[in-house]
Protein backbone atom coordinates (compact mmCIF):
# COMPACT_ATOMS: atom_id res chain seq x y z
CA UNK A 1 0.00 0.00 0.00
CA UNK A 2 1.27 3.41 -0.89
CA UNK A 3 1.81 5.81 2.00
CA UNK A 4 2.29 9.44 1.10
CA UNK A 5 4.59 11.42 3.34
CA UNK A 6 4.65 15.18 2.71
CA UNK A 7 8.20 14.85 1.33
CA UNK A 8 7.02 12.26 -1.14
CA UNK A 9 4.19 14.46 -2.37
CA UNK A 10 6.59 17.32 -3.01
CA UNK A 11 8.93 15.04 -4.91
CA UNK A 12 6.07 13.61 -6.93
CA UNK A 13 4.78 17.06 -7.77
CA UNK A 14 7.93 17.86 -9.70
CA UNK A 15 7.17 14.84 -11.84
CA UNK A 16 3.78 16.30 -12.81
CA UNK A 17 2.04 14.41 -10.00
CA UNK A 18 -1.19 16.07 -8.92
CA UNK A 19 -1.81 15.54 -5.23
CA UNK A 20 -5.33 14.56 -4.32
CA UNK A 21 -7.52 17.49 -3.37
CA UNK A 22 -7.84 16.47 0.28
CA UNK A 23 -4.11 16.95 0.73
CA UNK A 24 -4.41 20.56 -0.42
CA UNK A 25 -7.41 21.24 1.82
CA UNK A 26 -6.88 24.71 3.28
CA UNK A 27 -5.70 26.08 -0.04
CA UNK A 28 -8.43 24.76 -2.29
CA UNK A 29 -11.45 24.80 -0.02
CA UNK A 30 -11.51 28.57 -0.10
CA UNK A 31 -10.91 30.21 -3.42
CA UNK A 32 -7.67 32.08 -2.85
CA UNK A 33 -7.55 35.74 -3.65
CA UNK A 34 -4.49 37.13 -5.38
CA UNK A 35 -2.21 38.76 -2.74
CA UNK A 36 -2.29 41.98 -4.80
CA UNK A 37 -6.03 42.20 -4.08
CA UNK A 38 -5.15 42.85 -0.45
CA UNK A 39 -2.58 45.51 -1.31
CA UNK A 40 -5.39 47.34 -3.06
CA UNK A 41 -7.74 47.10 -0.06
CA UNK A 42 -5.68 49.56 1.97
CA UNK A 43 -5.31 52.82 0.10
CA UNK A 44 -2.96 55.35 1.66
CA UNK A 45 -2.65 58.76 0.08
CA UNK A 46 -1.38 62.08 1.45
CA UNK A 47 -4.87 63.36 2.22
CA UNK A 48 -6.78 60.17 2.88
CA UNK A 49 -6.33 56.69 4.31
CA UNK A 50 -9.04 54.33 3.09
CA UNK A 51 -9.87 50.69 3.73
CA UNK A 52 -12.06 48.67 1.36
CA UNK A 53 -15.26 47.39 2.94
CA UNK A 54 -14.43 44.06 1.25
CA UNK A 55 -11.70 43.58 3.87
CA UNK A 56 -14.41 43.03 6.53
CA UNK A 57 -16.59 40.51 4.72
CA UNK A 58 -16.59 37.10 3.16
CA UNK A 59 -15.20 33.68 4.07
CA UNK A 60 -12.45 34.11 1.45
CA UNK A 61 -10.81 37.09 3.14
CA UNK A 62 -11.30 35.45 6.53
CA UNK A 63 -9.64 32.19 5.44
CA UNK A 64 -6.69 34.08 4.08
CA UNK A 65 -6.43 36.14 7.27
CA UNK A 66 -6.16 32.89 9.19
CA UNK A 67 -3.40 31.68 6.91
CA UNK A 68 -1.45 34.90 6.39
CA UNK A 69 -1.87 36.48 9.82
CA UNK A 70 -3.03 34.00 12.47
CA UNK A 71 -0.76 31.13 11.32
CA UNK A 72 2.18 33.34 10.38
CA UNK A 73 2.75 35.67 13.29
CA UNK A 74 2.66 35.46 17.10
CA UNK A 75 -0.75 34.95 18.66
CA UNK A 76 -1.52 35.32 22.37
CA UNK A 77 -2.29 32.02 24.10
CA UNK A 78 -2.74 32.77 27.79
CA UNK A 79 -1.35 34.45 30.85
CA UNK A 80 1.25 32.45 32.76
CA UNK A 81 -0.94 32.52 35.90
CA UNK A 82 -3.59 30.45 34.09
CA UNK A 83 -1.19 27.51 33.86
CA UNK A 84 0.82 28.13 37.01
CA UNK A 85 1.27 24.52 38.19
CA UNK A 86 2.56 21.41 36.41
CA UNK A 87 -0.38 19.67 34.74
CA UNK A 88 -2.41 22.87 34.37
CA UNK A 89 -4.03 23.31 30.98
CA UNK A 90 -6.27 25.69 29.13
CA UNK A 91 -8.14 25.22 25.86
CA UNK A 92 -7.82 28.04 23.39
CA UNK A 93 -7.54 28.70 19.67
CA UNK A 94 -4.93 30.12 17.35
CA UNK A 95 -7.12 31.48 14.62
CA UNK A 96 -9.73 28.75 14.22
CA UNK A 97 -7.36 25.91 15.16
CA UNK A 98 -8.07 24.35 18.56
CA UNK A 99 -5.02 24.45 20.82
CA UNK A 100 -4.33 23.30 24.39
CA UNK A 101 -1.77 25.28 26.35
CA UNK A 102 -0.21 23.25 29.14
CA UNK A 103 2.37 23.34 31.88
CA UNK A 104 4.43 20.15 31.58
CA UNK A 105 5.74 18.05 34.46
CA UNK A 106 9.13 19.71 34.05
CA UNK A 107 7.56 23.18 34.25
CA UNK A 108 7.81 24.12 30.59
CA UNK A 109 4.93 25.61 28.63
CA UNK A 110 3.60 23.62 25.68
CA UNK A 111 1.02 24.44 23.03
CA UNK A 112 -0.55 21.41 21.37
CA UNK A 113 -3.17 20.84 18.73
CA UNK A 114 -6.28 19.48 20.45
CA UNK A 115 -6.52 16.47 18.11
CA UNK A 116 -5.67 12.86 18.81
CA UNK A 117 -2.96 11.67 16.43
CA UNK A 118 -4.79 8.35 16.01
CA UNK A 119 -8.08 9.27 14.38
CA UNK A 120 -8.34 12.99 15.03
CA UNK A 121 -10.78 12.96 17.92
CA UNK A 122 -10.79 15.97 20.24
CA UNK A 123 -8.87 14.89 23.32
CA UNK A 124 -9.62 17.77 25.68
CA UNK A 125 -13.22 18.92 26.13
CA UNK A 126 -12.70 21.19 29.14
CA UNK A 127 -12.03 24.92 29.18
CA UNK A 128 -9.33 24.59 31.81
CA UNK A 129 -8.10 22.23 34.51
CA UNK A 130 -5.23 20.13 35.78
CA UNK A 131 -4.37 16.64 34.62
CA UNK A 132 -1.56 14.10 34.56
CA UNK A 133 -2.44 13.07 31.05
CA UNK A 134 -4.88 13.59 28.20
CA UNK A 135 -6.71 10.37 27.39
CA UNK A 136 -8.55 10.25 24.10
CA UNK A 137 -12.25 9.39 24.68
CA UNK A 138 -12.40 7.46 21.39
CA UNK A 139 -9.83 4.64 21.66
CA UNK A 140 -7.95 5.52 24.83
CA UNK A 141 -4.64 6.74 23.43
CA UNK A 142 -2.97 8.77 26.17
CA UNK A 143 -0.56 11.69 26.11
CA UNK A 144 1.46 13.60 28.69
CA UNK A 145 0.72 17.30 29.09
CA UNK A 146 3.92 17.84 27.10
CA UNK A 147 2.17 16.07 24.21
CA UNK A 148 4.28 12.94 24.41
CA UNK A 149 2.41 9.73 23.52
CA UNK A 150 2.30 7.49 26.61
CA UNK A 151 0.13 4.58 25.69
CA UNK A 152 -1.78 2.84 22.90
CA UNK A 153 -4.33 0.25 24.10
CA UNK A 154 -3.60 -3.23 22.69
CA UNK A 155 -0.51 -1.89 20.99
CA UNK A 156 0.64 -5.37 19.90
CA UNK A 157 -1.82 -5.37 17.01
CA UNK A 158 0.01 -2.57 15.19
CA UNK A 159 2.43 -3.67 12.47
CA UNK A 160 6.14 -4.22 12.97
CA UNK A 161 7.95 -0.92 12.49
CA UNK A 162 4.82 1.20 13.10
CA UNK A 163 6.21 4.67 13.79
CA UNK A 164 5.15 5.93 17.22
CA UNK A 165 7.62 8.78 17.32
CA UNK A 166 5.49 11.01 15.09
CA UNK A 167 2.30 10.23 17.05
CA UNK A 168 2.88 12.72 19.85
CA UNK A 169 0.30 15.49 19.91
CA UNK A 170 1.22 18.05 17.26
CA UNK A 171 3.04 20.97 18.83
CA UNK A 172 2.63 24.60 17.93
CA UNK A 173 6.24 25.02 16.76
CA UNK A 174 7.05 28.25 18.61
CA UNK A 175 6.04 29.29 22.12
CA UNK A 176 7.48 32.29 23.97
CA UNK A 177 6.47 34.62 26.78
CA UNK A 178 7.07 38.24 27.67
CA UNK A 179 5.93 39.84 30.92
CA UNK A 180 3.73 36.84 31.74
CA UNK A 181 2.00 36.96 28.35
CA UNK A 182 2.36 33.63 26.52
CA UNK A 183 2.34 33.61 22.74
CA UNK A 184 2.52 30.82 20.18
CA UNK A 185 3.15 30.68 16.46
CA UNK A 186 2.50 28.07 13.81
CA UNK A 187 5.30 29.64 11.80
CA UNK A 188 8.59 27.93 12.70
CA UNK A 189 10.51 30.82 11.13
CA UNK A 190 8.61 33.59 12.93
CA UNK A 191 10.72 36.52 14.16
CA UNK A 192 11.75 36.57 17.85
CA UNK A 193 8.84 37.56 20.12
CA UNK A 194 10.55 40.72 21.35
CA UNK A 195 11.20 41.87 17.77
CA UNK A 196 7.52 41.25 17.01
CA UNK A 197 6.43 43.24 20.09
CA UNK A 198 8.60 46.19 19.03
CA UNK A 199 7.10 49.47 20.21
CA UNK A 200 4.48 47.70 22.34
CA UNK A 201 7.18 46.36 24.66
CA UNK A 202 7.59 49.63 26.57
CA UNK A 203 3.84 49.72 27.17
CA UNK A 204 3.86 46.17 28.51
CA UNK A 205 6.70 47.21 30.84
CA UNK A 206 4.66 50.18 32.10
CA UNK A 207 1.60 47.97 32.55
CA UNK A 208 3.67 45.52 34.61
CA UNK A 209 4.75 48.36 36.91
CA UNK A 210 1.15 48.71 38.08
CA UNK A 211 1.73 45.55 40.10
CA UNK A 212 4.24 47.54 42.20
CA UNK A 213 6.88 44.83 41.91
CA UNK A 214 4.45 41.91 42.16
CA UNK A 215 2.83 39.90 39.34
CA UNK A 216 -0.61 39.66 37.80
CA UNK A 217 -3.06 36.81 38.19
CA UNK A 218 -5.90 36.69 35.69
CA UNK A 219 -9.40 35.87 36.89
CA UNK A 220 -11.97 33.91 34.89
CA UNK A 221 -12.84 35.67 31.67
CA UNK A 222 -16.03 37.45 30.79
CA UNK A 223 -17.18 36.10 27.45
CA UNK A 224 -19.44 37.73 24.95
CA UNK A 225 -19.95 37.55 21.22
CA UNK A 226 -21.21 39.67 18.35
CA UNK A 227 -22.26 39.09 14.76
CA UNK A 228 -19.50 41.11 13.17
CA UNK A 229 -15.94 41.00 11.94
CA UNK A 230 -13.11 40.70 14.47
CA UNK A 231 -11.38 43.81 13.13
CA UNK A 232 -14.25 46.03 14.31
CA UNK A 233 -13.28 45.18 17.88
CA UNK A 234 -9.57 45.56 17.15
CA UNK A 235 -10.09 49.04 15.69
CA UNK A 236 -12.30 50.10 18.58
CA UNK A 237 -9.89 49.38 21.41
CA UNK A 238 -7.77 52.50 20.83
CA UNK A 239 -10.47 54.63 19.28
CA UNK A 240 -10.50 57.87 21.26
CA UNK A 241 -13.05 59.43 18.92
CA UNK A 242 -16.04 57.22 19.81
CA UNK A 243 -16.41 57.37 23.62
CA UNK A 244 -18.31 60.67 23.74
CA UNK A 245 -20.90 59.18 21.40
CA UNK A 246 -21.18 55.42 21.91
CA UNK A 247 -20.59 55.80 25.65
CA UNK A 248 -22.39 59.06 26.27
CA UNK A 249 -25.10 57.21 28.20
CA UNK A 250 -22.50 55.64 30.50
CA UNK A 251 -20.65 58.92 31.06
CA UNK A 252 -23.85 60.83 31.80
CA UNK A 253 -24.85 58.11 34.24
CA UNK A 254 -21.47 58.19 35.99
CA UNK A 255 -21.75 61.96 36.31
CA UNK A 256 -25.13 61.62 38.02
CA UNK A 257 -23.80 59.14 40.56
CA UNK A 258 -21.00 61.02 42.22
CA UNK A 259 -18.30 58.76 43.61
CA UNK A 260 -19.26 55.72 41.54
CA UNK A 261 -16.27 56.12 39.29
CA UNK A 262 -13.65 58.71 39.99
CA UNK A 263 -13.44 59.85 36.47
CA UNK A 264 -11.49 62.28 34.45
CA UNK A 265 -13.36 65.10 32.79
CA UNK A 266 -16.30 63.74 30.81
CA UNK A 267 -17.92 66.90 29.51
CA UNK A 268 -16.36 67.13 26.04
CA UNK A 269 -17.75 64.93 23.27
CA UNK A 270 -14.26 64.61 21.78
CA UNK A 271 -11.47 64.48 24.35
CA UNK A 272 -8.70 66.99 23.75
CA UNK A 273 -6.05 65.57 26.13
CA UNK A 274 -4.00 62.43 25.67
CA UNK A 275 -2.40 60.55 22.80
CA UNK A 276 -2.70 57.76 20.31
CA UNK A 277 0.29 55.89 18.96
CA UNK A 278 0.82 53.56 16.05
CA UNK A 279 3.88 51.39 15.56
CA UNK A 280 5.38 49.86 12.42
CA UNK A 281 4.84 46.41 13.97
CA UNK A 282 1.08 47.02 13.77
CA UNK A 283 0.48 47.69 17.45
CA UNK A 284 -1.17 50.85 18.79
CA UNK A 285 -2.13 52.66 21.97
CA UNK A 286 -4.71 55.02 23.40
CA UNK A 287 -3.41 57.07 26.34
CA UNK A 288 -5.70 59.39 28.27
CA UNK A 289 -2.94 61.45 29.89
CA UNK A 290 -4.75 61.00 33.23
CA UNK A 291 -5.65 58.11 35.53
CA UNK A 292 -8.98 56.31 35.42
CA UNK A 293 -9.99 54.89 38.79
CA UNK A 294 -13.13 53.66 40.51
CA UNK A 295 -14.79 55.19 43.46
CA UNK A 296 -15.71 53.22 46.53
CA UNK A 297 -12.18 52.47 47.66
CA UNK A 298 -10.77 53.36 51.09
CA UNK A 299 -8.59 56.45 50.47
CA UNK A 300 -5.95 55.12 52.88
CA UNK A 301 -5.64 51.91 50.86
CA UNK A 302 -5.28 53.80 47.62
CA UNK A 303 -2.76 56.22 49.14
CA UNK A 304 -0.65 53.31 50.34
CA UNK A 305 -0.64 51.81 46.84
CA UNK A 306 0.19 55.15 45.21
CA UNK A 307 2.97 55.75 47.73
CA UNK A 308 4.40 52.34 46.92
CA UNK A 309 4.47 53.26 43.23
CA UNK A 310 6.14 56.62 44.00
CA UNK A 311 8.78 54.91 46.12
CA UNK A 312 9.54 52.47 43.33
CA UNK A 313 9.33 54.75 40.30
CA UNK A 314 9.47 58.35 41.58
CA UNK A 315 6.76 60.99 41.32
CA UNK A 316 6.78 61.26 37.53
CA UNK A 317 7.28 57.56 37.03
CA UNK A 318 4.27 56.73 39.21
CA UNK A 319 2.14 59.27 37.34
CA UNK A 320 3.14 57.65 34.04
CA UNK A 321 2.31 54.18 35.38
CA UNK A 322 -1.13 55.31 36.57
CA UNK A 323 -2.04 57.00 33.30
CA UNK A 324 -5.06 55.30 31.74
CA UNK A 325 -3.68 53.38 28.77
CA UNK A 326 -4.98 50.66 26.55
CA UNK A 327 -3.13 49.05 23.69
CA UNK A 328 -3.58 46.42 21.05
CA UNK A 329 -0.87 43.94 20.23
CA UNK A 330 -1.48 43.01 16.62
CA UNK A 331 -3.68 41.31 15.70
CA UNK A 332 -6.01 40.46 18.61
CA UNK A 333 -4.65 41.03 22.13
CA UNK A 334 -5.64 44.08 24.12
CA UNK A 335 -4.14 45.19 27.39
CA UNK A 336 -6.19 47.49 29.61
CA UNK A 337 -5.34 48.88 33.06
CA UNK A 338 -7.61 46.34 34.76
CA UNK A 339 -8.05 43.51 32.26
CA UNK A 340 -6.77 41.61 29.25
CA UNK A 341 -9.11 41.35 26.32
CA UNK A 342 -8.70 38.68 23.66
CA UNK A 343 -10.51 39.13 20.36
CA UNK A 344 -11.28 35.66 18.98
CA UNK A 345 -12.28 35.46 15.33
CA UNK A 346 -14.90 32.74 14.75
CA UNK A 347 -16.02 33.55 11.20
CA UNK A 348 -15.92 36.61 8.98
CA UNK A 349 -19.13 37.84 10.59
CA UNK A 350 -18.79 36.32 14.07
CA UNK A 351 -16.41 37.26 16.86
CA UNK A 352 -16.04 36.34 20.50
CA UNK A 353 -14.42 38.54 23.12
CA UNK A 354 -12.83 37.19 26.29
CA UNK A 355 -12.09 39.73 28.98
CA UNK A 356 -9.90 38.63 31.91
CA UNK A 357 -9.87 40.86 35.02
CA UNK A 358 -6.31 41.30 36.29
CA UNK A 359 -5.62 40.83 39.99
CA UNK A 360 -2.34 41.88 41.58
CA UNK A 361 -0.74 39.10 43.65
CA UNK A 362 -0.36 40.16 47.26
CA UNK A 363 -2.17 43.48 46.85
CA UNK A 364 -4.67 44.70 49.45
CA UNK A 365 -8.01 42.88 49.06
CA UNK A 366 -9.74 46.16 48.45
CA UNK A 367 -7.41 47.05 45.55
CA UNK A 368 -8.16 43.72 43.90
CA UNK A 369 -11.89 43.80 44.62
CA UNK A 370 -11.93 47.22 43.06
CA UNK A 371 -10.06 46.04 39.96
CA UNK A 372 -12.46 43.08 39.68
CA UNK A 373 -15.57 45.26 39.83
CA UNK A 374 -14.02 47.81 37.52
CA UNK A 375 -13.27 45.29 34.79
CA UNK A 376 -16.74 43.80 35.30
CA UNK A 377 -18.85 46.93 35.45
CA UNK A 378 -17.08 48.79 32.65
CA UNK A 379 -16.07 46.21 30.08
CA UNK A 380 -17.54 42.86 31.15
CA UNK A 381 -20.40 40.97 29.51
CA UNK A 382 -22.91 43.30 31.19
CA UNK A 383 -20.55 46.29 31.20
CA UNK A 384 -21.95 49.79 30.96
CA UNK A 385 -19.52 50.32 28.05
CA UNK A 386 -18.87 47.11 26.10
CA UNK A 387 -22.47 46.12 25.36
CA UNK A 388 -22.84 49.40 23.47
CA UNK A 389 -19.63 48.89 21.49
CA UNK A 390 -20.60 45.48 20.23
CA UNK A 391 -24.02 46.70 19.18
CA UNK A 392 -22.20 49.13 16.90
CA UNK A 393 -20.02 46.32 15.51
CA UNK A 394 -23.03 44.20 14.53
CA UNK A 395 -24.48 47.30 12.89
CA UNK A 396 -21.19 47.81 11.06
CA UNK A 397 -21.22 44.30 9.66
CA UNK A 398 -24.78 44.90 8.55
CA UNK A 399 -23.87 48.10 6.74
CA UNK A 400 -20.68 46.83 5.12
CA UNK A 401 -22.30 43.77 3.58
CA UNK A 402 -23.41 45.97 0.74
CA UNK A 403 -20.81 45.91 -1.98
CA UNK A 404 -22.18 49.19 -3.29
CA UNK A 405 -20.40 50.93 -0.42
CA UNK A 406 -16.73 50.48 -1.22
CA UNK A 407 -14.53 52.42 1.22
CA UNK A 408 -14.42 53.52 4.84
CA UNK A 409 -12.03 56.28 5.86
CA UNK A 410 -9.47 56.27 8.68
CA UNK A 411 -7.95 59.67 8.05
CA UNK A 412 -8.24 61.56 11.35
CA UNK A 413 -4.87 63.14 12.12
CA UNK A 414 -3.29 61.88 8.90
CA UNK A 415 -0.40 64.21 8.03
CA UNK A 416 -0.85 65.99 11.38
CA UNK A 417 0.63 63.24 13.50
CA UNK A 418 4.26 63.25 14.60
CA UNK A 419 6.33 60.65 12.73
CA UNK A 420 9.41 59.56 14.67
CA UNK A 421 12.59 58.25 13.01
CA UNK A 422 11.84 54.68 14.12
CA UNK A 423 8.42 54.80 12.48
CA UNK A 424 6.34 55.42 15.63
CA UNK A 425 3.50 57.83 14.92
CA UNK A 426 1.99 59.94 17.68
CA UNK A 427 -1.41 61.54 17.30
CA UNK A 428 -3.92 63.21 19.59
CA UNK A 429 -6.46 61.15 21.59
CA UNK A 430 -9.11 61.10 18.87
CA UNK A 431 -6.74 60.42 15.92
CA UNK A 432 -6.89 57.23 13.89
CA UNK A 433 -3.13 56.71 14.08
CA UNK A 434 -3.30 53.26 15.74
CA UNK A 435 -5.93 52.01 13.29
CA UNK A 436 -3.70 53.03 10.39
CA UNK A 437 -0.79 51.15 11.95
CA UNK A 438 -3.05 48.08 12.20
CA UNK A 439 -4.05 48.24 8.56
CA UNK A 440 -0.51 48.84 7.27
CA UNK A 441 0.56 45.67 9.05
CA UNK A 442 -2.53 43.81 7.83
CA UNK A 443 -1.75 44.78 4.24
CA UNK A 444 1.90 43.76 4.55
CA UNK A 445 1.03 40.31 5.92
CA UNK A 446 -1.90 39.65 3.60
CA UNK A 447 0.02 40.69 0.50
CA UNK A 448 3.07 38.57 1.35
CA UNK A 449 3.23 35.57 -0.96
CA UNK A 450 2.31 32.39 0.84
Amino acid at each position, binding site marked *: MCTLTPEKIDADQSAAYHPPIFLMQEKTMNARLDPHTFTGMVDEQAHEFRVATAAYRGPGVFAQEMEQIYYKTWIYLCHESEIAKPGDFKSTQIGTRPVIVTRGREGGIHALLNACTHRGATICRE*EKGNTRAFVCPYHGWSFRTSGELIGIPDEARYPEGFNKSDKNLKSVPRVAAYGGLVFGSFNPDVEPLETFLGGAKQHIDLWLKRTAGSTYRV*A*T*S*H*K*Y*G*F*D*GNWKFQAENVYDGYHPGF*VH*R*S*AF*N*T*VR*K*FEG*SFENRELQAAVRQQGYTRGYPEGHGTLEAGAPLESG*GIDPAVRDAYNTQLKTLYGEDGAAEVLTNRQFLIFPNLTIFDFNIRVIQPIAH*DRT*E*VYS*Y*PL*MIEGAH*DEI*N*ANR*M*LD*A*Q*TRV*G*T*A*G*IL*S*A*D*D*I*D*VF*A*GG*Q*NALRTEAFKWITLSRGLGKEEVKPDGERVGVYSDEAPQRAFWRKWRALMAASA
Partner: protein
Amino acid sequence: MTHPVQKLILREAQLLDNMQLDDWLALYTDDATYWVPIDETTDPLKESSIIYDNRLRLAMRVEQIMRQNRVAQNPSSNTLRMVSNIDIEDIDAQTATARFALLLTEVRSGDWRQKGLGETRFFPGHCELVCKKVGDTWKIQQKTIVLLNRKQPLVGLSFLL
Protein backbone atom coordinates in the same frame (compact mmCIF):
# COMPACT_ATOMS: atom_id res chain seq x y z
CA MET B 1 -52.84 31.58 51.19
CA THR B 2 -50.22 32.82 48.74
CA HIS B 3 -46.96 33.64 50.49
CA PRO B 4 -46.16 37.36 50.15
CA VAL B 5 -42.73 36.43 48.79
CA GLN B 6 -44.37 34.59 45.92
CA LYS B 7 -46.25 37.77 45.10
CA LEU B 8 -42.93 39.65 45.29
CA ILE B 9 -41.32 37.23 42.82
CA LEU B 10 -44.14 37.61 40.33
CA ARG B 11 -44.29 41.36 40.83
CA GLU B 12 -40.57 41.64 40.09
CA ALA B 13 -40.93 39.68 36.85
CA GLN B 14 -43.86 41.85 35.82
CA LEU B 15 -42.09 45.15 36.49
CA LEU B 16 -39.02 44.02 34.54
CA ASP B 17 -41.14 42.83 31.61
CA ASN B 18 -43.03 46.13 31.66
CA MET B 19 -39.78 48.15 31.74
CA GLN B 20 -40.86 49.82 35.00
CA LEU B 21 -37.29 49.71 36.20
CA ASP B 22 -37.51 52.49 38.80
CA ASP B 23 -40.36 50.62 40.47
CA TRP B 24 -38.35 47.43 40.13
CA LEU B 25 -35.38 49.00 41.91
CA ALA B 26 -37.68 49.97 44.78
CA LEU B 27 -38.25 46.25 45.47
CA TYR B 28 -34.64 46.02 46.69
CA THR B 29 -33.36 46.94 50.14
CA ASP B 30 -30.70 49.65 50.45
CA ASP B 31 -28.09 47.03 51.32
CA ALA B 32 -29.11 44.70 48.50
CA THR B 33 -26.74 42.62 46.40
CA TYR B 34 -27.52 41.34 42.93
CA TRP B 35 -25.31 38.55 41.68
CA VAL B 36 -25.08 36.81 38.32
CA PRO B 37 -22.11 34.50 38.89
CA ILE B 38 -19.90 32.74 36.39
CA ASP B 39 -18.84 30.31 39.14
CA GLU B 40 -21.36 30.38 41.97
CA THR B 41 -18.95 28.61 44.33
CA THR B 42 -16.46 31.50 44.39
CA ASP B 43 -16.16 34.83 46.20
CA PRO B 44 -17.48 37.54 43.85
CA LEU B 45 -14.82 39.96 45.08
CA LYS B 46 -12.07 37.52 44.16
CA GLU B 47 -13.42 35.83 41.04
CA SER B 48 -15.29 37.12 38.00
CA SER B 49 -19.05 37.43 37.85
CA ILE B 50 -21.22 38.50 34.98
CA ILE B 51 -22.75 40.99 37.42
CA TYR B 52 -22.07 41.62 41.09
CA ASP B 53 -23.89 44.83 41.94
CA ASN B 54 -24.77 46.75 45.03
CA ARG B 55 -27.76 49.04 45.11
CA LEU B 56 -25.72 51.96 43.69
CA ARG B 57 -24.57 50.04 40.62
CA LEU B 58 -28.08 48.68 40.07
CA ALA B 59 -29.40 52.23 40.18
CA MET B 60 -26.79 53.21 37.58
CA ARG B 61 -27.96 50.45 35.25
CA VAL B 62 -31.55 51.64 35.61
CA GLU B 63 -30.49 55.23 34.92
CA GLN B 64 -28.48 54.27 31.82
CA ILE B 65 -31.36 52.27 30.35
CA MET B 66 -34.30 54.46 31.38
CA ARG B 67 -32.99 57.97 30.91
CA GLN B 68 -29.66 58.00 29.12
CA ASN B 69 -30.66 56.41 25.85
CA ARG B 70 -28.00 53.73 25.75
CA VAL B 71 -26.99 52.66 22.25
CA ALA B 72 -27.52 48.93 22.78
CA GLN B 73 -31.09 49.55 24.01
CA ASN B 74 -32.03 51.42 20.86
CA PRO B 75 -34.22 49.63 19.86
CA SER B 76 -34.92 48.29 23.31
CA SER B 77 -35.24 44.69 24.47
CA ASN B 78 -38.66 43.15 24.89
CA THR B 79 -38.68 40.47 27.53
CA LEU B 80 -40.86 37.71 28.87
CA ARG B 81 -40.03 36.06 32.18
CA MET B 82 -41.53 32.69 32.96
CA VAL B 83 -41.14 31.83 36.62
CA SER B 84 -41.87 28.45 38.11
CA ASN B 85 -40.80 25.80 40.67
CA ILE B 86 -41.11 28.43 43.39
CA ASP B 87 -39.98 27.14 46.77
CA ILE B 88 -40.18 29.52 49.72
CA GLU B 89 -38.78 28.93 53.15
CA ASP B 90 -39.50 31.14 56.15
CA ILE B 91 -36.39 31.73 58.21
CA ASP B 92 -37.97 34.02 60.80
CA ALA B 93 -40.82 36.52 60.90
CA GLN B 94 -38.73 39.06 58.92
CA THR B 95 -36.71 36.78 56.66
CA ALA B 96 -37.52 34.28 53.93
CA THR B 97 -35.54 32.58 51.22
CA ALA B 98 -36.85 31.51 47.86
CA ARG B 99 -35.68 29.46 44.93
CA PHE B 100 -37.31 29.47 41.55
CA ALA B 101 -36.66 28.63 37.92
CA LEU B 102 -36.51 31.42 35.36
CA LEU B 103 -36.81 31.33 31.61
CA LEU B 104 -36.17 34.79 30.25
CA THR B 105 -36.87 35.32 26.57
CA GLU B 106 -35.54 38.49 24.98
CA VAL B 107 -35.85 40.09 21.56
CA ARG B 108 -34.82 43.43 20.09
CA SER B 109 -36.97 44.26 17.12
CA GLY B 110 -36.43 47.50 15.18
CA ASP B 111 -35.32 46.64 11.64
CA TRP B 112 -35.30 42.92 12.40
CA ARG B 113 -33.35 42.12 9.21
CA GLN B 114 -30.23 43.80 10.57
CA LYS B 115 -27.43 41.95 12.30
CA GLY B 116 -27.77 42.17 16.06
CA LEU B 117 -31.56 42.64 15.92
CA GLY B 118 -34.60 40.44 15.47
CA GLU B 119 -33.15 37.43 17.26
CA THR B 120 -35.12 35.70 19.99
CA ARG B 121 -32.70 34.78 22.77
CA PHE B 122 -33.16 32.59 25.82
CA PHE B 123 -31.66 32.99 29.27
CA PRO B 124 -32.66 30.07 31.49
CA GLY B 125 -31.47 30.06 35.07
CA HIS B 126 -31.89 29.09 38.70
CA CYS B 127 -32.72 32.03 40.96
CA GLU B 128 -32.31 32.44 44.68
CA LEU B 129 -33.61 35.24 46.83
CA VAL B 130 -33.13 36.37 50.37
CA CYS B 131 -36.10 38.55 51.28
CA LYS B 132 -36.61 40.86 54.25
CA LYS B 133 -39.75 42.33 55.68
CA VAL B 134 -39.18 46.08 55.93
CA GLY B 135 -42.12 47.55 57.84
CA ASP B 136 -45.09 45.90 56.16
CA THR B 137 -43.35 45.32 52.86
CA TRP B 138 -41.28 42.37 51.70
CA LYS B 139 -38.15 43.40 49.83
CA ILE B 140 -35.27 41.65 48.13
CA GLN B 141 -31.99 41.75 49.99
CA GLN B 142 -30.04 39.29 47.85
CA LYS B 143 -30.73 37.97 44.40
CA THR B 144 -28.63 35.37 42.62
CA ILE B 145 -29.27 34.30 39.04
CA VAL B 146 -27.31 31.23 38.01
CA LEU B 147 -27.67 31.14 34.24
CA LEU B 148 -27.31 27.80 32.51
CA ASN B 149 -25.15 29.37 29.82
CA ARG B 150 -23.03 31.42 32.23
CA LYS B 151 -19.71 29.88 31.21
CA GLN B 152 -19.91 30.56 27.50
CA PRO B 153 -20.19 33.73 25.43
CA LEU B 154 -23.46 35.62 25.85
CA VAL B 155 -24.68 38.57 23.90
CA GLY B 156 -23.66 41.86 25.52
CA LEU B 157 -26.18 42.28 28.35
CA SER B 158 -27.52 45.80 27.93
CA PHE B 159 -30.84 44.99 29.61
CA LEU B 160 -31.58 43.74 33.12
CA LEU B 161 -31.89 39.99 33.62
